[in-house]
């Protein structure tokens, strides 16, 4: 009788261990799926944010050119390049504006060659870029002919880069 009881207890213990292992494996499986979904959700959320931001960015006071719809002020961009405070303000990895037409010498803009240059890199952080969102904009500045001021606008592409794993 004693041996039979011990056998039953052993059976019970094996069964409990099996059930516990099953639950542990099921939980691990559940969490691995959940983590994968969460990562995907964070990527989608970043993409949505980039799209929302690119709509808004051209009209932000730091970039917008008064009186021109979807117009960006190139003088302001050059000024912003000198302000490190804005590097984290929009929560993106980089903002790059590239002139498309008319053609200029293929060079990054700096105080020496501006406005005869192509690319204005507002900032660009280190790290893997997850995705980019882009939009066509009018890149404008005040210019003058014979002492008379006018708005000079050129076609450009604004690109926003987001960081990987940013949530």
């Amino acid at each position, binding site marked *: 009788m004693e041996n039979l009881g011990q056998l039953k207890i052993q059976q019970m213990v094996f069964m409990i261990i099996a059930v516990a292992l099953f639950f542990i494996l099921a939980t691990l499986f559940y969490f691995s799926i959940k983590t994968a979904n969460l990562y995907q959700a964070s990527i989608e959320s970043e993409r949505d944010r980039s799209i929302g931001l690119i709509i808004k960015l051209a009209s932000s006071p730091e970039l917008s050119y008064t009186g021109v719809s979807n117009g960006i002020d190139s003088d302001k961009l050059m000024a912003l390049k000198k302000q490190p405070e804005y590097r984290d303000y929009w929560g993106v990895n980089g903002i790059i504006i590239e002139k498309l037409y008319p053609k200029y010498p293929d060079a990054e803009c700096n105080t020496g060659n501006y406005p005869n240059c192509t690319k204005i890199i507002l900032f660009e952080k280190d790290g893997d870029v997850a995705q980019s969102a882009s939009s066509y904009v009018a890149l404008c500045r005040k210019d003058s002919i014979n002492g008379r*001021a006018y708005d000079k606008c050129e076609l450009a592409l604004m690109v926003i880069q987001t960081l990987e794993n940013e949530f």
Partner: protein
Amino acid sequence: MLNKKDKMDKRGFEFSFVWLFSLIVGAIIIFLAIYAATKLIGSSEYEINTKTAADLRNVLNPLGTSFEDSKSEKIELIRDTRVYITCNSEKGYFGENRIQLSEKSSFKDWSEPGGDIAIENQYLFSENSIQGETLYFIVTPFEMPYKVADIMSVFSQKYCFVNTPEKIEKEIESLKGNILPINLTNSINQCEINSITVCFQNSGCDINVKGACTDKECEGDLYKNGFVEKNNTQIYYSGELLYGAVFSSPENYQCNVKRLVRKLGYVSEVYSEKSRLSANRCNTGLQSDTILLSKLSESYKNLNDLKILESQADIINTKNKALGECNLY
């Protein structure tokens, strides 16, 4: 014979060690299963609330104004939700708002609030917590004298404006449309019982607005600046900050104004550099004035300092208007 039968019956109800062991272990397994299930539901609610807060942040970006004066919008949530909005003016260069959500749960009253999501590039003027299925937004530009950012006033309750001045009434009427739950009346008695009342120049409402602009530059608009009395606190407002002061808790208002002024400093630096860069093409001569505005912003301490900034902004505005086509903004 009877004794033997009794013995047989007793053996039928025998409660052996195996039974006792399996009952205890079974109870432990069931308890752990229920505990794990509860925890999983809790973490799932936390995840949903965090994701909803992140989605809400994403929706806020396109809500800003571009060339229009102001606009209104509403966001409908799936279920009754509590939104906790905090403000920290000291975080980073621009300060931040943080939003945290808690949805009405089917198991308990309110689910565990999700993670708080930081928003650095928006200025949310609201009560510390708002509750409802619909969030209403009034978005107005903060200009001093150029646009600095958008004032996003967020609320979920009904409001009743009593004896509203003509200019503000027109503005609210145009914003209201079919979106905002704002009632405009001439008497406090006409307000719905569950609405928050806002009085102009009279006391007796939940919120009382006292216009104080009597200078020449006010151009007869008494409410261009003044004070909003709320929760036994009096706060100064100027221009479009009126909506922020009405719909926001005093602490959120003061914190967000501080953030806006800090941003005014950075935007002024941008305009100053723009003025320098474009000097050979279109000389504005506003470089020193914008730098001064930036310096004044840096020395901002509290709402009383807004008046100093306003007067410098008026100087820049007057000079800019005189520049004609070569204006700075």
